[in-house]
């Protein structure tokens, strides 16, 4: 029974990994659209992706938007997280709900909300409009990541620094920040990825010159369905792999190193 369950689990794992086995070969295929296994092999769609402004511009747009979103999100969320984790105050429960709300509201609801709202304030199809919307949607994840980190932070370090005469600002810079920076980095990363992948809201509020990569991919899947999408997908896989595997390897290696020490 146990074995059967584990075998079944392995099968499901294969199911989870399937897209990888499709998308990567597909990106080297000579197929015109959806055809698998590939009728022939080349790297032509890679050059097509890198040389076509219709793909590179949305890519750069998305990178820029996501970078701005991650900075803005961390700037806004950091002080709020400190307040929520370290202080008690009236209305805290409400604030908590407010912070998590963007995660609970379906994106299609926000998409039409932003569409009407940004048109009203003349920010529809502009970078600031998309950045503002994406930042709001990134707040909950960044907050969850940061507060988890902050809860694990040993405050006696700060108190020690203060008792030695360090000002609050200096304490923050020299004690709190160095210990918490992985938390900040993780929060920024979550916000970045959230924005970079966000599709539904971007479909409604981005425009000709502010087109994001997911929107371009959506249009492309719907019209030509050509393997350039597979190229983009493979590159995204690589980026995700780097994000997921590198920390695991790093942790394993550093553990080995510390274990091998006498």
């Amino acid at each position, binding site marked *: 029974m146990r074995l059967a369950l584990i075998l079944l689990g392995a099968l499901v794992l294969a199911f989870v990994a399937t897209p990888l086995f499709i998308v990567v070969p597909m990106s080297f295929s000579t197929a*015109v659209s959806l055809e698998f296994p590939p009728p022939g092999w080349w790297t032509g769609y890679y050059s097509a992706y890198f040389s076509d402004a219709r793909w590179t511009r949305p890519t750069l747009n998305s990178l820029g938007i996501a970078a701005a979103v991650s900075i803005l999100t961390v700037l806004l969320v950091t002080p709020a997280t400190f307040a929520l984790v370290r202080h008690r105050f009236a209305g805290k429960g409400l604030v908590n709900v407010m912070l998590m709300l963007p995660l609970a509201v379906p994106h299609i609801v926000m998409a039409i909300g932003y569409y009407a*709202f940004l*048109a009203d304030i*003349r*920010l529809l199809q*502009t970078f*600031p409009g998309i950045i503002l919307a994406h930042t709001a949607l990134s707040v909950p994840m960044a907050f969850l990541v940061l507060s988890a980190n902050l809860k694990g932070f040993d405050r006696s370090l700060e108190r020690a620094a203060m008792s030695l005469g360090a000002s609050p600002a200096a304490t923050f810079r020299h004690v709190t920040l160095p210990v918490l920076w992985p938390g900040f980095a993780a929060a920024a990363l979550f916000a970045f990825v959230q924005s970079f992948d966000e599709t539904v809201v971007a479909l409604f509020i981005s425009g000709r010159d502010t087109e994001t990569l997911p929107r371009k991919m959506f249009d492309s899947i719907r019209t*030509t*369905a050509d393997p350039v999408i597979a190229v983009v997908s493979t590159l995204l896989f690589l980026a995700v792999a780097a994000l997921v595997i590198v920390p695991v390897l790093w942790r394993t290696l550093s553990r080995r190193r510390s274990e091998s020490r006498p």
Partner: protein
Amino acid sequence: MAQKGFTRRATLTLGAGTVAGLATPYFRRVRAAEVLHVNTWGGIWERAAIKNLFEPFTRDTGIEIRPVSPVSFAKLAQQVRSGAYEFDVTTLGAGEIIRANQANLVEKLDNTDLVKSPPFAGAAFQNGASSHAFATVIAYQKSKYPNGGPQNWAEFWDTQKFAGSRCMQRYASRILPIALAADGVPTEKLYPLDLNRAFRSLDKIKPAVRVWWTQGQQSQQLLRDGEIDCIALWHARTLELIDQGQPVEIVWNQAQIERAYWVVARGTPNRDNALRFLEAAIRPERVAGFCRDSLNGPLNPAAFNHVSAAEAARMPTAPAYKDKVFEQDILNFGGDVNAATQRFERWIGT
């Protein structure tokens, strides 16, 4: 004025608007003075337009033209309402140009030469510049029907005799007349359309329709990948696939001829240049080149002076097809095109 629909909600957003509004001038993209954005259908259509319409226009005027796709009637309506323009000029079929005028989405041509001294009769229609004719034809997979596929719309509807999946365009004013033809109405007596009968006829084909296509390249992809066996699509896209060696057959019998028009999005800051483009785009030699490469038929009669007999024979306007095809009569539609479109969209989803 343009964003009438939104001002009602303005009070609500006043607070937030002020904050963002103050920042706006610093962010706003500086629009290059001499760029025109023109909506295209992509693929073969776009290549023909760039070579024969856009590049000559830029050579003459110095105005750069950037193609924007996909074509979307909805986008035209959205941008007029929201004031955020993705394109200055777009191309519309007959049904859409009626809807666009109803909703006041296109610039009036009254003060232009297209109306005041038209280069040919019918150069301007409903505030659009008459460009070319195209056909919606039946195409099918040869491998699926080795003994020949459906030869008319009634047979296209006959999923007993011609089993297999169907595909049609998500475009009410183009599909409703076809539905009547399939139901046995003679093609010369379609108009004004009996809409209820048309929808009853559509009910019969609905279970077989796997996809309602919206983009020209999408219709080609579905046919090329064999997702569908039998499709109603544009003749030019079918001919292109056949030229590429795809095992696809085209049926000219009962092809529906429709006209396409260039229009200027109302309220665009590039209105004057856009109007210049309209006038240039229907000049005989240019529209001839465009039609030659995009396999369409020019509406400007003088264009045929620039087209060889062999080329003309492939156009939907060719005499060889005259007795087989029928033409749309949009002014005699038989109801409100917009309401019919709404009904059609809802019908698809149920």
